[in-house]
């Protein structure tokens, strides 16, 4: 079952229904007793609409966070649960905790709520509606790796940050937290949540990525080993610590267990945050009639033709062979009446402006790729534009300090493939949508923000 929720940042409406379930396994092996039925969704968002959950309601529903008493104890539980990161890369959570827990210096733990992706609302919604699950997860992660230095890095929104500061103060007063939590402002940039940019920002520098190695889990905030997890990942951790791996696996697929938050952009222009099981058919999440293509994985993701998407589920198992991935759960249905090339060109220009401009290939290549795509979006484009673009894409991939060039070219390359019919139309001087009213969401002030990284 998927549930919609009111998103405080966008238009709201009830979410779509339906999910695939696997039957619940044996009773949980976690430290806490049995919890709510594992198959019930939503888990992270309150059942009844969008009323934010205060500390009293949270504790009466879930009890206080189940501290284990020793570092390391949560790690095998997370391994058995099969939890993967919900920030985009779907990396197994236990492996990062293990690496950080084994470090010789005291680590830092950061909850990543930067949510720089303009088409994503799920982290802001989660922090707004269920802040205490995220804060529980942060404490439990800190205990697991033996850290006392904890912070929550949050998208720049004064109301949200104020509410989180109040929640943190309330927990401190109630004696629920073991480590003090700082709320740190994330600049409203696409790259602000990239983990090395995050570490740089929290160390007092601009939020720009740096070259790896060393990875952030080796040397991050002020040079210390740093565990960075997406805020949704932390919220899942808080529940797995209570109810155990079998409960977590009661929804989802064996290979990709659990539920995840998605930001849905149906073709009618609405915007919803829903929680759904992995393995849910995409057509249950988005109505696909009147849709030509689905964008999965946000602006570093890929377009998939609607006819193919109709046969896929929300899983990397289905999406990766098509060059896409689940990512952080952004799904956009592009109406048949819009020009996919013009839409991609507009976003590519934004992505080029969001480059930190530190790496030669990214600095030189992304604006050229965006300009070439603009050319392809125009009537009777220069036929060299596509070949230039493909050459430049090859020149930027794998050559940045971060994955911004790689994500950008994945998005652009998928458009060249999926909208090839539209490219032929443009060559003949036609376009499906000459009016070109923007569909994919972008921040209003991209160009103005271009110089502000702190």
């Amino acid at each position: 079952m998927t549930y919609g929720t009111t998103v405080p940042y966008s238009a709201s409406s009830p979410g779509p229904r339906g999910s695939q379930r696997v039957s619940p396994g044996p009773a949980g092996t976690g430290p806490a007793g049995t919890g709510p039925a594992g198959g019930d969704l939503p888990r992270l968002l309150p059942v009844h609409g969008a009323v934010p959950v205060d500390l009293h309601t949270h504790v009466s529903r879930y009890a206080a966070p189940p501290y284990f008493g020793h570092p390391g104890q949560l790690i095998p539980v997370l391994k058995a649960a099969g939890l993967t990161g919900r920030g985009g890369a779907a990396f197994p959570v236990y492996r990062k905790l293990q690496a950080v827990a084994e470090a010789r210096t005291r680590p830092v733990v950061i909850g990543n709520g930067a949510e720089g992706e303009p088409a994503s609302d799920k982290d802001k919604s989660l922090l707004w509606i269920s802040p205490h699950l995220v804060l529980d997860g942060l404490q439990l992660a800190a205990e697991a790796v033996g850290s006392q230095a904890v912070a929550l890095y949050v998208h720049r929104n004064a109301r949200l940050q104020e509410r989180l500061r109040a929640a943190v103060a309330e927990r401190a007063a109630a004696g629920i937290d073991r480590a003090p939590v700082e709320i740190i402002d994330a600049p409203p940039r696409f790259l602000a949540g990239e983990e090395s940019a995050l570490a740089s920002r929290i160390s007092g520098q601009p939020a720009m990525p740096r070259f790896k190695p060393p990875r952030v889990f080796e040397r991050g905030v002020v040079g210390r080993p740093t565990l960075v997890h997406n805020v949704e990942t932390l919220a899942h951790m808080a529940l797995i610590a209570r109810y155990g791996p079998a409960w977590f696996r009661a929804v989802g697929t064996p290979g990709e267990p659990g539920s995840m938050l998605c930001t849905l952009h149906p073709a009618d222009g609405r915007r919803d945050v829903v929680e759904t099981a992995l393995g849910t058919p995409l057509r249950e999440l988005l109505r696909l009639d009147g849709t030509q293509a689905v964008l999965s994985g946000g602006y570093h993701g890929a377009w998939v033709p609607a006819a193919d998407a109709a046969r896929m589920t929300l899983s990397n198992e289905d999406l990766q062979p098509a060059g896409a991935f689940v990512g952080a759960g952004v799904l956009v249905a592009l109406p048949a009446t819009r020009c996919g090339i013009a839409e991609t060109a507009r976003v590519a220009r934004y992505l080029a402006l969001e480059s930190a401009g530190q790496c030669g290939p990214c600095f030189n290549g992304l604006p050229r790729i965006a300009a070439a795509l603009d050319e392809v979006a125009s009537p009777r484009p220069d036929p060299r534009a596509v070949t230039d673009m493909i050459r430049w894409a090859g020149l930027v991939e794998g050559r940045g300090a971060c994955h911004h060039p790689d994500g950008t070219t994945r998005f652009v390359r998928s458009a060249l493939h999926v909208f090839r019919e539209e490219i032929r139309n443009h060559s003949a001087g036609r376009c499906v949508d000459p009016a070109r009213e923007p569909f994919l969401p972008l921040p209003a002030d991209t160009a103005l923000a271009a110089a502000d990284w702190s």
Partner: protein
Amino acid sequence: MKKELRVDPTACSGHGLCAELLPELITLDEWGYPIVAREPVPRSLDRHVRRAVTDCPTLALRLLPAS
């Protein structure tokens, strides 16, 4: 242990000295930035590689364990 040459693109200023010192492993792209072969550095080039690493004016070249 096998080593691999990498360039830190945030440090590289693209003057191309490395491509002159080590044409066996480094070419320049159309904007003048180095493209480094992603392969273990052959032993026969060890000395040249070390030279390129120390001579890069911005210390952007790194000799790292091969991936």
